[in-house]
């Protein structure tokens, strides 16, 4: 039996692992239902083309074909909606062109779906889809966001002139920022691209929709990060079917990283088809389709100026960004470059004047939405690149420059939170602490010596810093509501005490690798003084869990965990009443200590299981005391949480070839209190590798016709095991002052901090060899680094 208390802060091994390591996980594609049919799609090979005709005749008579539907069939069905409304600077609503389930008139990106074929087997569906003949008239395509706004550029949607979805600004008045920049002793300017990434969860998206006509009940199995949100969006906005007739299950999900938050057209289309056919319909994306369809990440074109006074204090920051949204507005696409990006431009610094000007643009490319970090990596990249570059330009030490500009430590309890220039109020922070710790782990002084020596011997070593902050624990509903979110971002936690005293916990958060079944059970077992095996965590099924907003934005523990705590408090309160009744004491005189209800000052006590049983066998209950021990709570956070940290990368650059080798990576993260250090570390490792992936390997490449030219694992360079050293991690703990667990969230930290650290390290290596390079476009391939050295 595991220890009954003190579980918080322990690296408990994961409960869910047993099924995964033995091959018994259950992912959506593993499910085959009685009467199963299979779907395959006809997709546009062109980025922009009129659809002149679709001939399904030959296909319809092929073996095994059950049905074929085209754009014309779903013309009266709504498109998939966007969940966050952002307004133009002039107050008008952003442009929201329809994203239809199948396109009838015009394909707007490669992969746009034109027809769906449903057949008895997967192979027959694919064969028939290939027999459908589509006649296209190819139109000129637009790929680059900054060019898409120019007059005369191809128009993706007639309803969005100049391809602009919205424009937006945040921060201090631009005149003030301009003046502060103009008055600065030094200005560092960067023109750069934060390139487009393909999320690449290793499990491809998969859906299986079925309809039981006798009970008028739909079931959708979906590889999603948030089953309830999918049900809400699909029922209320797309298909108009009542929610209580629809069960959405997100079973085991093989990684998400944002890409499985969104409501995709295939989810709604399959649900629509199963109703027509009265048979289950299943579709699993091929990897080639994933590359073309799963919402991509990043894709910003930015110009940024940071001003400094003569002694290196930041005076102002001015940012102009074009954000590429792709061909359609994905579920949260609008808030990523705006509210999740612009609001983080304060970073860890006391910058007194900040302004961001943003244009969000449609192009003939795959939709772009939240990808691990979502907006915050872009903000961090911008700030941290500027800081290191400014240090080089002003001949200062990059660590010193940061210390000089850090916001001083504040705990958010005895000292107030820090009000930024860009709307947010940070909860608590000790930014000096993480950098000091990072420098010590690195052995900074020794490194600089080694670097000099190496340079004398013709070798290029570099170190790069990134001290980041993120807004997590998404999100206080009132705040996001005022910013345009069309949903509240609370979470639901339901604690059901079984008569035997065992606990079932139902959470609206969803685990797709994060280990909720372990972490949440640790919290519950610790609070109730029970062994972990007495606690079961249920998630991912709209029928089991009352409601939920799902998992993204490093929110599960901070928001979902807090909801569970609220319910646990109610359980204990009620338990005290039952115990008081048992011992004929006053409820106020009952304490709950280490798993027992104790009457103060007496030797009367009862274990939790005894009270649980009494709750369900309520003989001789007094009036007013209800049987049962079962509570549900909604927790709406008071603020975002603000994890932060310091990432330091060390690289060696080959002078002859430009090849970059990452030799060390130090990550000091402050994610508030930690429930399970093993799991938190794992999150950091994974995030760091993804972030380094952006810096060194990954990037979606489009040609000028809108064709994704590296849409497979043969050409899109995924980070591999042999690209990395062991990652050196450490933590600092500054508790979150406004949630009961004091936690801040750890899912995105690694991915946010690491990218600029690596790029800064490469730039530092080049400066050490006398190459005063300002920027190299990511990913930093050997060729690009080599070219930069030749300038």
């Amino acid at each position, binding site marked *: 039996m595991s220890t009954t208390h003190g579980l918080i802060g322990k690296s408990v091994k994961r409960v869910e692992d047993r099924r995964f390591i033995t091959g018994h996980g259950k992912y959506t594609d593993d499910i085959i239902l009685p009467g199963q049919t299979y779907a395959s799609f006809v997709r546009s*090979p062109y980025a922009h083309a009129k659809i002149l005709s679709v001939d399904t005749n030959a296909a319809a008579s092929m073996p095994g074909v059950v049905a074929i539907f085209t754009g014309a069939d779903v013309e009266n069905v709504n498109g998939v909606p966007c969940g966050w409304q952002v307004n133009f600077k002039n107050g008008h609503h952003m442009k929201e062109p329809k994203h239809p389930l199948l396109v009838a008139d015009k394909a707007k990106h*490669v992969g746009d779906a034109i027809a769906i074929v449903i057949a008895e087997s997967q192979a027959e569906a694919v064969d028939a889809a290939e027999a459908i003949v589509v006649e296209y008239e*190819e139109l000129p395509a637009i790929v680059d966001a900054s060019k898409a706004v120019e007059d005369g550029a191809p128009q993706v949607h007639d309803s969005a002139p100049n391809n602009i979805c919205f424009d937006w600004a945040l921060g201090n008045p631009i005149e003030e920022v301009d003046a502060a920049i103009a008055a600065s002793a030094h200005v560092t300017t960067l023109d750069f691209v934060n390139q487009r990434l393909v999320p690449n969860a290793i499990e491809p998206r998969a859906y299986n929709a079925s309809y039981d006509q006798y009970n008028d009940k739909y079931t959708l199995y979906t590889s999603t990060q948030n089953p309830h949100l999918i049900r809400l969006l699909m029922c209320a906005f797309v298909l108009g079917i009542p929610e209580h007739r629809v069960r959405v299950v997100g079973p085991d999900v093989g990684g998400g990283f944002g890409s499985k938050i969104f409501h995709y057209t295939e989810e709604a289309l399959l649900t629509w088809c199963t109703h027509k056919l009265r048979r289950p319909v299943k579709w699993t994306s091929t990897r080639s389709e994933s590359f*073309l369809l799963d919402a991509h990440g990043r894709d910003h074109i930015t110009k940024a100026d940071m001003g400094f006074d003569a002694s290196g204090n930041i005076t102002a920051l001015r940012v102009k960004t074009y954000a590429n949204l792709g061909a359609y507005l994905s579920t949260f696409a609008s808030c990523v470059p705006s509210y999740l990006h612009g609001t983080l431009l304060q970073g860890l610094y006391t910058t007194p004047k900040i302004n961001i000007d943003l244009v969000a643009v449609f192009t003939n490319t795959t939709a772009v939405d939240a990808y691990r970090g979502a907006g915050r990596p872009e903000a961090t990249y911008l700030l941290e690149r500027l800081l290191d570059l400014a240090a080089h330009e002003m001949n200062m030490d990059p660590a010193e420059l940061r210390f000089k500009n850090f916001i001083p430590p504040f705990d958010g309890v005895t000292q107030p939170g820090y009000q930024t220039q860009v709307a947010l109020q940070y909860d608590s922070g000790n930014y000096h602490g993480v950098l000091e710790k990072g420098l010590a782990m690195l052995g900074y002084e020794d490194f600089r010596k080694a670097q000099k020596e190496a340079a004398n011997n013709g070798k290029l070593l570099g170190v790069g810093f990134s001290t980041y902050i993120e807004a997590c624990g998404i999100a206080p509903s009132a705040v996001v509501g005022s910013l345009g979110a069309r949903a509240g971002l609370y979470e639901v936690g339901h604690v059901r005490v079984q008569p035997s005293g065992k606990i079932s916990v139902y959470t609206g958060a969803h685990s797709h690798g994060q280990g909720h079944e372990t972490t949440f059970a640790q919290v519950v077992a610790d609070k109730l003084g029970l062994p972990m095996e007495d606690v079961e965590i249920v998630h991912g099924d709209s029928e089991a869990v009352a409601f939920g907003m799902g998992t993204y934005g490093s929110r599960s523990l901070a928001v979902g965990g807090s909801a569970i705590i609220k319910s646990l408090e109610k359980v204990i309160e009620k338990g005290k009443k039952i115990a008081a009744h048992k011992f004929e004491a006053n409820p106020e005189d009952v304490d709950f200590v280490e798993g027992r209800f104790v009457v103060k000052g007496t030797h009367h006590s009862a274990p939790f299981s005894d009270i649980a049983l009494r709750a369900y066998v309520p003989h001789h209950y007094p009036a007013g005391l209800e049987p049962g021990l079962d509570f549900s709570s909604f927790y709406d956070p008071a603020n975002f949480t603000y994890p932060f940290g310091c990432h330091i990368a060390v690289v060696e650059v080959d002078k002859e070839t430009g090849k970059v080798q990452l030799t060390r990576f130090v990550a000091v993260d402050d994610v508030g209190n930690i429930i399970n250090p093993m799991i938190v570390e794992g999150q950091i490792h994974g995030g760091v590798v993804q972030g380094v992936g952006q810096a060194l390997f990954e990037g979606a490449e489009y040609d000028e016709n809108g*064709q*994704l*030219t590296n*849409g497979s694992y*043969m*050409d899109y360079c995924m980070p591999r095991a042999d690209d990395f050293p062991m990652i050196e991690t450490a933590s600092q703990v500054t508790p979150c002052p406004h949630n009961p667990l004091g936690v801040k969230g750890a899912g995105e930290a690694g991915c946010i901090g690491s990218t600029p650290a690596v790029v800064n390290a490469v730039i530092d290596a080049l400066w050490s060899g006398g190459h005063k390079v300002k920027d190299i476009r990511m990913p930093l391939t050997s060729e690009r680094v080599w070219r930069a050295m030749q300038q």
Partner: protein
Amino acid sequence: MQLTGNHVVEASPAKVWALLMDTDTLARIVPGVTKLEKIDDTTFKSTLGVKLGPVSAAFNGNLQMENVMEEKGFTLKIQQNSKVGNASAAIEISLTPLEETKTAIAFNGDVKLSGMLATMGQRLIGGVANTLSKQFFSNMEKELLP
């Protein structure tokens, strides 16, 4: 993608021209052709099989000659469709007499790929195009042998 190259063959422009204008010969010398059908003087319907690394595909479509200048050259417009994506191209082909029995054949044009051909094939197409044009000329030389 730009497609350019040239080659010198041991034959008079008239002989080369006659070859290029004959459907049956063309079907023999263009690599990958499984069927070539003359629709009218300047239009052909074709079926081609091409392998591009991992992607091998059967193409259906049209070949069309424009700006035909007897024994001097023409523009070949290609529109080929397949399950894995489509290819379209406009290629200028010109014949220059060098000696009595020597002709330089030059080609120059732009090829556009779409769909899976573009996502998976782009990286390889340069090499494949090179091989195909080499094959084309060596086939032509065989035809020209007495």
